[in-house]
């Protein structure tokens, strides 16, 4: 029973931590709206969440063996690893900056609401569990 609970919460746990990391990425896009040559970044959220939840490791996870401490480790670090993508600008600007403020703000708000939703789901999950345990 307990590992079933864990499985239920695992989904939201993964979704939340990805949402947090994406929120950070989007905030960095907004912060760098005036920085020359800054390229806006984002991730394919559904793809990464699926990859995290699936037990079979993807082909991307194969790493190169290192035989010396001087070698660069091929394993990507961070929440997203090597899944960070660059946004394709609709209206490129002269200074090389690809931040589209309308788009970034919309994504930021969208991500925030979905983070909120995930928390609501988790709370409901707990509420259901408590009412099942109280058996009233």
């Amino acid at each position: 029973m307990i590992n079933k609970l864990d499985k239920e919460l695992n989904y939201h746990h993964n979704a939340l931590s990805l949402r947090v990391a994406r929120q950070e990425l989007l905030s960095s896009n907004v912060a760098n709206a005036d920085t020359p040559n800054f390229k806006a970044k984002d991730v394919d959220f559904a793809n990464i969440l699926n990859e995290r939840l699936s037990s079979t490791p993807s082909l991307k996870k194969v790493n190169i063996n290192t035989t010396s401490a001087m070698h660069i480790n091929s394993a990507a670090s961070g929440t997203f690893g090597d899944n960070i993508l660059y946004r394709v600008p609709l209206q490129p600007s002269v200074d090389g900056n690809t931040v589209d403020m309308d788009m970034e703000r919309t994504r930021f708000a969208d991500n925030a609401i979905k983070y909120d939703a995930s928390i609501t789901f988790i709370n409901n999950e707990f509420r259901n569990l408590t009412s099942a345990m109280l058996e009233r």
Partner: protein
Amino acid sequence: MSLFNVFGIASSAMSAQSQRLNVVASNLSNADSVTSSTGEPYRGRQVVFSTLQADANGASGVKVAGIVHDPSPMRQVFEPKHPLADKNGYVTMPNVNVVDEMVNMMSASRSYQNSVDMMNTTKSLLQKTLTIGQ
């Protein structure tokens, strides 16, 4: 908890934008300063933004890499009675374009507002996170 990193990113953007606003204020107030402690007329200044080193999640803040002097030519005004006029009667005035500076100011203040908004959103998300399981 990387939601706190959003605060760091937003505050780096706010301090960079306020520095830009500071430079705009300096340019605007010295738009007519014909001379200075060095004897030269005031030269416009501009901030240069650059990206900070990205963290593990690929997100990065902003910093002011430096303040550069505007290389555009100085404004020449014909005013023969001015004590600083040259032999042809021209006074060298600062190369500050007031319209450019006003636009710069609006852009900086909007970017600053965006960062404040970002902080407020993140704050409410964090507060919501603390209510999990209650």
